[in-house]
């Protein structure tokens, strides 16, 4: 099953490994990112961070939708899917990844981004990509980690979903 699909520009880090995988009893983390999938050294850095009992897979966006579908059908697997930005998450959904809910867990400040929700930054194109996710029927939640307050996108994306 897919325990969580998360947008986090820090990809796999403590908040994901401890803050999310722990409470979700995750067995696997699927890191979906074209750059990391193509860089053995960078992939190894993330792999080194994963604690025993948790497995990390790194896939390019184009290959990930099929793998998400496979893992979604295995009840014994509790998979956390991590994507670095709304654009890649939209590509993943448009490629057929069966995701009902996407958690916007971490988008940090950088040039071009505005604080769209408290502590969560997004650019205008990224907000458009998030609206497109909603249009695909994906439930979008703004939440740092499981157990933290959950917020609907609400005003940050201009109100009610289409």
């Amino acid at each position, binding site marked *: 099953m897919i325990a969580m699909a998360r947008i986090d*520009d*820090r*990809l796999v*880090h*403590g908040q994901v*490994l401890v803050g999310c995988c722990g409470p979700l009893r995750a067995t696997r983390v699927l890191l979906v990112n074209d750059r990391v999938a193509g860089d053995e*050294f*960078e992939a190894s*850095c*993330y792999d*080194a*961070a*994963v604690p025993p009992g948790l497995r990390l897979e790194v896939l390019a966006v184009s290959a990930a939708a099929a793998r998400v579908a496979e893992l979604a059908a295995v009840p014994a697997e509790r998979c956390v899917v991590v994507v670095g930005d709304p654009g890649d998450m939209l590509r993943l959904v448009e490629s057929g990844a069966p995701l009902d809910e996407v958690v916007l867990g971490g988008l*940090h*400040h*950088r040039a071009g981004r505005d604080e769209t929700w408290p502590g969560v930054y997004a650019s205008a194109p990224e907000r458009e990509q998030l609206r497109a996710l909603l249009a695909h029927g994906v439930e979008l939640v703004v939440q740092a980690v499981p157990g933290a307050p959950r917020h609907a996108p609400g005003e940050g994306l201009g109100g009610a979903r289409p």
Partner: protein
Amino acid sequence: MRALIVSHGQLAAELLASARSICALDAPVEALSNEGHGPDELRAAIQAWIEAAPGDALVLVDAGGGSCGIAARLAVARCGRPDVRVLGGANLPMVLALLSSLGELDPSALVEKLLARARGDVADLGGGALT
């Protein structure tokens, strides 16, 4: 030789300030927080620090597997600087040893000492009721 401590929040700055208040030693050590930095910006900031001067340098991070540790490892790799080492698990004993030994030991000996000091203080100190 110089050093940079990279951490979440203000941990790096507070570790450095605390260590300096304990041993009153000045050494070329700076602190960097990941606050306000996305992963690419943090990596770039560390890379800029590395490239600011030649020669041996150390980057200490709070957690090797966290965003600071990964950013540091990637920054060093991108700089192509084998004279820069990254140490994870920065704690007060490590930073105290850093301040007291930076410039006194060769890089390998310094790394060995910092790791030993950091690990050595991780211990069960006992406790329980007085008898």
